[in-house]
């Protein structure tokens, strides 16, 4: 057996999507799509190889892998490949897209490349560039459907995310001036003494990257961008863009010693709790189903941030929650895409009796909605349960209470709305004949199955990687 | 007591009293020129004053003693200020140790308050309107004045205007420091508002634009004459403080002889002419703002004054 150096997978991860981004610009749309699919598949294969070999270590001053990035790479490339696959179905239904298929695939590949770049660089400055690059590459994707609302959403997204990231950059300036390096290995090897400036830098990074994660009150771009973007892009946003920004914050947070100073961890928990509660209650008032899922993502990000702040078992729970949620939420958005292009509306009130119109899609939708809101056998439930356990274990009972309330409220909100759309009685004469699209409903089942498998710890290497990532971050295992 | 050095007090007070109508007359003449009129003689304020002092004085029905006393009280306050701020000497004259900068500000406040009380005492609608307007804008102007004093104090570490004059005329870096530039700008804006210049107030008998003049609407004859003189004194004193302590602190002779004092008086008139020219340029180029926008104007002045102190704190240097 030939031993392949981990650096090979690393370079493959970077080269496949970037080459796909460039080569997708060929004149022929079918070839372009094939190239994009090939690039995504290669990247996914490389991510699996990285996960299986448990690759870690630094290559050169700027690149490196460890168990945390292994887990996130699997997640990002997994959603990347399914989104590229689903894009064909979605793209075909568009009447007058703003971008040609070639530009669309190129931007989508570049978007994925930017996120992979965030995960494999070891310099916080480069990581910041990667996060900013995700904004550049994804902003135009939102406008695909050429509506005034889409333009306005893209506008808010660009502006708010960029403004937030300038704060993150300021945080890095402070960190660099205080420590003299931004390399995460050097920072880990010589952890700086905990001083007020370092704590302030972490707090600024929380606000800065938190804008991109969608933390309250910097979340205002999130529902707009998620609801106006085409569904494959919404899935990327919700499933992996938000976690990628959170990953960048985690790397800054790692500068602090393992039980982080109370003032910082309290701040992190407060942001997370506010986000989860606000999102959970906003879910109740949504009229568009894509905004419904956008707020659900915001709620899950709030819970994950709580997990990071609490630490210990809750940190492990947060990682499980993020990975499971990525797969479940992308499934929900693919279903939403099917519903949107079949019914032509995104208003919850105008959609009833989907089980006869779209039998397969509505099945997947019910399952994935239950999965994103933390129904028991899914990985999201395991993650949320561990966050509650972790919060109680360190004596933060009120935090556990917040998590339970947010989860219950969000669960009721999302599932009752989806239930009404799928099982509700249609008004007389408005029932549509069954017209399941020929494809595009298989992918949601696949992704929901992954979320389920994470919940029962049935994915061998991923479970190990999650455990070692949690330990690496200073968390505890149950 | 050395009577020779006390003479300078009298010289300075008389300079202020006698020159203030002249500066006002020059202002009117400049203003007329900018409007392509030939305008009155620069000595017109003296003629006006003489006329007022000869005219019969009428008191409104029901007014009390305050109405009669107030102009003289204000006049006394201005006279006292004229011997405590640097007008013609760069060195403290004997009376100057009575009060510091803040005390001078309080004396200005006293003069304004009694004028206000007289206006309320008159019972006239116009005078009361003028008083209420003045007070509502003074709510912004007075804090600005106090903060201007703080800013001056942080530059020199003392609240003595003579020390400030000395430091600014000797140190270029103190003169060009952000704190000083900002506080000068803030004080200039305040000066425009306090002396009733555009864009805050258009002088004259148009009652819509009237602030200062509204308050003395009911005074007549001798009392009106004193009140007018008070207005010119206030303008002269504020101008003198502005040129000597803020904008043009240079060149004053510290020679206490008659020759040195005469030189200083000439220099003061030259500086005031420059200032009057600048203010007339402002008046010729800006329009009057709406009454409710005056608050914005004063807020700008206030912001600049706060920033002056702030700049000192942030930069750590004057």
């Amino acid at each position, binding site marked *: 057996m030939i031993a392949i150096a981990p650096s090979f997978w690393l370079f493959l991860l970077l080269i496949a999507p970037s080459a796909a981004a460039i080569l997708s610009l060929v004149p022929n749309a079918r070839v372009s799509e094939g190239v994009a699919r090939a690039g995504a598949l290669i990247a996914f294969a490389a991510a699996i190889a990285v996960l299986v070999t448990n690759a870690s270590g630094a290559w050169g001053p700027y690149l490196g892998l460890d168990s945390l990035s292994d887990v996130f790479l699997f997640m990002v490339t997994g959603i990347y490949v399914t989104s590229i696959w689903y894009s064909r179905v979605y793209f075909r239904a568009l009447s007058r897209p703003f971008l040609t298929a070639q530009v669309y695939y190129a931007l989508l590949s570049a978007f994925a490349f930017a996120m992979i770049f965030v995960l494999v660089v070891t310099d916080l400055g480069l990581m910041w560039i990667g996060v900013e690059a995700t904004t550049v590459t994804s902003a135009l994707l939102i406008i695909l459907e050429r509506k005034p609302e889409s333009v306005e959403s893209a506008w808010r997204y660009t502006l708010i995310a960029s403004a937030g990231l300038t704060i993150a950059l300021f945080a890095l300036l402070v960190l*660099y*001036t205080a420590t003299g390096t931004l390399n995460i290995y050097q920072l880990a090897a010589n952890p700086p003494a905990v001083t007020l400036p370092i704590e302030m830098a972490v707090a600024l990074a929380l606000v800065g990257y938190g804008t991109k994660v969608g933390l309250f009150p910097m979340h205002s771009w999130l529902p707009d961008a998620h609801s106006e973007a085409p569904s494959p892009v919404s899935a990327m946003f919700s499933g992996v863009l938000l976690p990628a920004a959170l990953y960048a914050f985690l790397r800054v947070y790692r500068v602090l010693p393992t039980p982080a100073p109370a003032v910082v961890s309290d701040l992190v928990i407060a942001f997370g709790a506010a986000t989860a509660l606000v999102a959970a209650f*906003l879910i109740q008032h949504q009229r568009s189903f894509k905004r419904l899922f956008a707020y659900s993502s915001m709620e899950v990000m709030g819970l994950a941030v709580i997990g990071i702040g609490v630490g210990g078992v809750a940190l492990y729970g947060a990682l499980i929650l993020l990975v499971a949620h990525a797969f479940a939420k992308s499934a929900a958005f693919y279903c939403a895409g099917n519903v949107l292009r079949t019914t032509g509306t995104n208003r919850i009130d105008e959609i009833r009796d989907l089980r006869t119109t779209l039998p397969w899609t509505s099945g997947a939708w019910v399952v994935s909605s239950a999965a994103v809101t933390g129904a028991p056998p899914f990985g999201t439930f395991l993650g949320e349960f561990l966050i509650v356990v972790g919060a109680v274990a360190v004596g933060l009972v009120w935090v556990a209470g917040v998590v339970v309330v947010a989860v219950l409220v969000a669960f009721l909100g999302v599932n009752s709305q989806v239930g009404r759309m799928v099982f509700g009685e249609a008004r007389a004469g408005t029932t549509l004949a069954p017209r399941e699209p020929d494809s595009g409903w298989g992918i949601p089942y696949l992704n929901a199955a992954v979320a389920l498998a994470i919940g029962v710890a049935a994915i061998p290497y991923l479970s190990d990687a999650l455990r070692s990532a949690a330990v690496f971050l200073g968390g505890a295992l149950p | 007591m050395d009577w020779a050095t006390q003479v300078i007090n009298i010289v300075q007070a008389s300079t202020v009293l006698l020159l203030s109508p002249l500066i006002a007359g020059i202002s009117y003449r400049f203003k007329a020129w900018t409007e392509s009129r030939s305008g009155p003689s620069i000595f017109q304020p003296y003629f006006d004053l003489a006329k007022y002092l000869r005219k019969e004085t009428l008191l409104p029905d029901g007014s009390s003693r305050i109405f009669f006393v107030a102009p003289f009280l204000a006049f006394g306050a201005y006279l006292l200020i004229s011997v405590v701020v640097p007008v013609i000497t760069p060195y403290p004259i004997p009376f100057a140790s009575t009060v510091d900068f803040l005390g001078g500000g309080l004396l200005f406040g006293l003069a304004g308050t009694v004028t206000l009380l007289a206006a309320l005492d008159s019972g006239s609608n116009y005078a009361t309107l003028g008083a209420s307007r003045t007070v509502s804008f003074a709510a912004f102007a007075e804090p600005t004045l106090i903060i201007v004093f703080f800013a001056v104090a942080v530059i020199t570490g003392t609240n003595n205007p003579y020390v400030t004059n000395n430091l600014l005329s000797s140190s270029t870096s103190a003169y060009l420091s952000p704190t000083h530039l*900002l506080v000068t700008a803030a004080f200039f804006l305040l000066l425009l508002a306090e002396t009733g210049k555009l864009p805050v107030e258009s002088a004259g008998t148009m009652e819509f634009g009237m602030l200062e003049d509204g308050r003395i609407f009911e005074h007549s004859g001798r009392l009106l004459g004193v009140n007018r003189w008070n207005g010119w004194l206030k303008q002269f004193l504020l101008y003198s403080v502005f040129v000597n302590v803020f904008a043009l602190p240079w060149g004053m002779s510290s020679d206490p002889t008659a020759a040195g004092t005469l030189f200083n008086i000439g220099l003061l008139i030259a500086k005031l002419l420059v200032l009057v020219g600048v203010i007339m340029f402002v008046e010729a180029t800006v329009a009057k703002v709406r009454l409710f926008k005056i608050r*914005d104007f004063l807020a700008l002045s206030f*912001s600049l004054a706060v920033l002056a102190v702030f700049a000192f704190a942030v*930069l750590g240097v004057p």
Partner: protein
Amino acid sequence: MDATAEVIALVGIGILLTALYLQSESFVDPLIRAIALQSLLLGVLLGWLAWTQRSVDLAILAALAVGVRAAFIPLFVLRRQIRAFRWRVRELHAAHRVTGHALAAVALAIVSWFVFQETLASVFPQPGAALPFILLMQGLLMLATRSNTIVQVIGYLEEENAVVYAGALFSQGFPLFVEVVVFLDVLGVVLVGVILSIQRDVTGSPEEAVLEELTG
């Protein structure tokens, strides 16, 4: 006080003044010229530092500040957006109160200075080191209180100015700083230009419309 400290102090206060002016003005065209002036002041400061330190990086930053953020974006891209009605474009929704905004801006400046003194002053001990942080907060206030798209771009430019200011003055040696700033400028030029013009093509006006779908 040496010459460099004086230049830093004077230009820094000038930048702060432009920031406060930006808060209190509601018409768009003077705002565009004010942000151009702010970037120009920053460019002058960076140019001075580049000259005294013989630093190519700082010279590039100065050229970017003057060329891109003082000239190209405000005077070329943004002013073209309001070409037809330059004299009347202003904030429409927010009741813009000059006094309130000016005083709020001054208050925020003071608060952010206290925060800076309490937390970051030990890392940035230089006089005037709080100014970039104050500018950053002013930019955020602007983004939070304004609704006109062009004014929001101006807020973004102000944020970028703040970061460049901080990086160039007090965090020299930050890896890839010039590249980061180039990246920010590219983002500013491309996205702002492209999205603003798409917005005009799709909605027909730079004056914003209320979009019912995006509420909630």
